[in-house]
């Protein structure tokens, strides 16, 4: 089995930590995995794209309309990176919106893609810290149990990737994200 995941967002919002957790999770579960990051020239606040490929791939590039999953940690970066999402793919978008703009909604429907708008900032703020909204996104994603991405595996990888003093808070936010998904899916 193989999966292509695109993580998008802006610098300073934890996109790269999330993608590091995704790789770590896959490798711990015995998969081959690799990633490639695009950061641009801004130190903070610029577009960040991290491409994650799990399974018997050779390159860390994701082609247009090939991504099984697009995780957008910031809403505008979702639109910018929508061409990655394949027909029937899954998108999770951190946003305060309750619905996608109707042309985008119609497109996603026509392409049989599932798209979830999640107020990850709010979930993270309630469960720990708004800075951990990336964890709320990962927790939400875990509810779909795609490949190695169960909540147990993600939390296991998280424990190895974050500082011990921050682990409990990150885990709590991750689980809050998952609960949000379980209520809706």
């Amino acid at each position, binding site marked *: 089995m193989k999966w292509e995941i695109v993580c998008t967002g802006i610098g300073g919002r934890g996109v790269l930590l999330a993608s590091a957790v995704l790789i770590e999770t896959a490798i711990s579960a015995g998969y081959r995995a*690799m990633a490639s990051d695009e950061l641009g020239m801004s130190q903070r*606040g610029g577009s960040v794209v991290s491409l994650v490929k799990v399974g018997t791939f050779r390159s860390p590039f994701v082609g247009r309309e090939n991504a099984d999953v697009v995780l957008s940690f910031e809403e505008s970066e979702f639109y910018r990176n929508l*061409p990655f999402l394949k027909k029937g793919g899954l998108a999770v978008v951190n946003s305060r919106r309750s619905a996608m703009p109707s042309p985008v909604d119609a497109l996603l429907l026509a392409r049989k893609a599932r798209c979830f708008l999640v107020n990850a900032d709010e979930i993270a703020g309630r469960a720990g810290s708004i800075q951990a909204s990336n964890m709320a996104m990962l927790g939400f994603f875990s509810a779909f149990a795609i490949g190695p991405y169960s909540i147990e595996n993600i939390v296991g990888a998280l424990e190895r990737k974050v500082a011990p003093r921050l682990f409990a808070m990150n885990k709590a936010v991750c689980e809050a994200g998952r609960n949000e998904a379980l209520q809706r899916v």
Partner: protein
Amino acid sequence: MSNVEVMIGNQAIALGLVEAGIDLASAYPGTPSSEILPAVIDFKRRMGRKIHIEWSVNERVAMEVALGAAMAGKKAACMMKQVGLNVAFPPFIKSRAVPIRSGLLIVSCDDPGPQSSQTEQDSRLIATLFGVPVFDASSPGDARSLASWALAYSVERQTPVVLRSTHRVSHAREAVSLDTPTPEKGSLDEGLKLSNGNGLGIVTSGMSYNVVMDVLDELGLEKVVSLFKVAQIFPLQAGLFAFVRSMEHVVVLEETDEVLEALIGDRSKVFGRSTGYVPRQGELTYDVIRGIVQVVAEKAGVGAKFFSPDRAIEEAVSTVSFAPRPPKLCAGCPHRASFYAMRQAFPKAVFPGDIGCYTLGISQGAVDTCVDMGGSVGLAAGFYEAFHQDGPFMPIVASIGDSTFFHAALPLLYDSVKKGKQYILVIMDNGTTAMTGMQPTPQSGRRAEGTSEYAIPIEEAAKGFGVEFLRVLDPYDIPGMIKAVKEAGADLKQRGRGPAVIVARHPCLLYAKTGKNMSVQPPDLTADCNGCKRCIDLYGCPAFLFDESEGRIKLDDALCVNCATCQFVCPQKKKGRRERG
């Protein structure tokens, strides 16, 4: 499993170098090469090796230090980005003809795109042109073994060798095993990878090889196309020519110039850059390679499962308005204030700019040129002569970062002082080499591994050269900064000689880790905002949010660091101060 570590390509290169037993490593930081040297430090500690490690002041120094060590019998490696190789050109060319008693490996990381460079450039081409052996890494794991292989090659032949990486290899992350020591003489991962008849063959190197493998798999062509991977670009091995001879059609996929293609030479059957099938600029991404393979597979009559993009995606996205995200200086960056003051003091000046974070001053209209490291100072001198020859005084306000100043501008500044050239040079001193990841500068007084060294203050260097107008100030004081730039201009006119130097000193906020300044109240821009947007046009802080529905500016609390410098930018606030004053 336990001894597997996820690492980026640059860490894998460092692992290969330390495993290969290097005695010395030197580098100047530059994206995408910057992480190699810190990783050499890390693996040196973990493996208990004895290695001299240094950040050199520029790539030429890095290469000369490494060359000297290699001539004296040590295994040495120096690291740089592709345009850094240009700076190191004198020792690079001569190194072919000096006696190397051990090994010299030059790691040069290219930036197809380019994503973070002033120009694309193929280090394989430069090495090949001048007959220096060069290897092309295709993945982090491959880069780790090639680093050892290439160093052994250098030791065996007593010649310098180049290891070329690209940002896609240097910054890719994958699991690398820590416990398989690279054999000094293993086998080079090169040659025939897919053998499927002679209709269409692909010759490829570097990351393009791995992309081609994925593309062939997606298009269902892995059973009909033959594939040859090249790792040793120069001197080419005979197997490649035999492969090309045996094929009816050949596609060459390589980044970023024609090197293999030119060495193959046969245009009659090659689909490549010379025949217009491969773009001459930009990265060979998955989509680019998929497009090329589809076209040539059809031409060669081997068929393809065609991918055609669904343009409805762009149509739907075009209906949504979302802000463009051009690269910007960080919220609270002290040198946004420096650029603003330069432009306020002399709105019609010529603004020669430089490399690094401060290239981003272009969005404030205070950077007109971006040529090379130190180029702002050299161009300022040239611009001065050009205007001076024709008569009227033209204000010229050049900018350069602190690390860049030490890297390249010392001889340029001295030359200008000697000749009295009239321009203003603003040295934006943030105390670190910020854009590439906070490496020390000669002013930091800190070495690569953290020990202290003699620190050279910028103003002492300028004084030593005989600069007469010299000011050191904090650019957060915007009125003071504007005044200083104006006084510098007046001084040039009055004395008829220059240059005038201003050291704008305030640490990089990311480096100093100051965070939000809680003792300062951010200015309330919203209350008296009349929607003129001058702050956005001239200052462009990422924390500015313009609320279109209310027609007013707001500060994004998550990004704002309370530097409060924007109070000097708002015309309403200025008016308020005048009325009060």
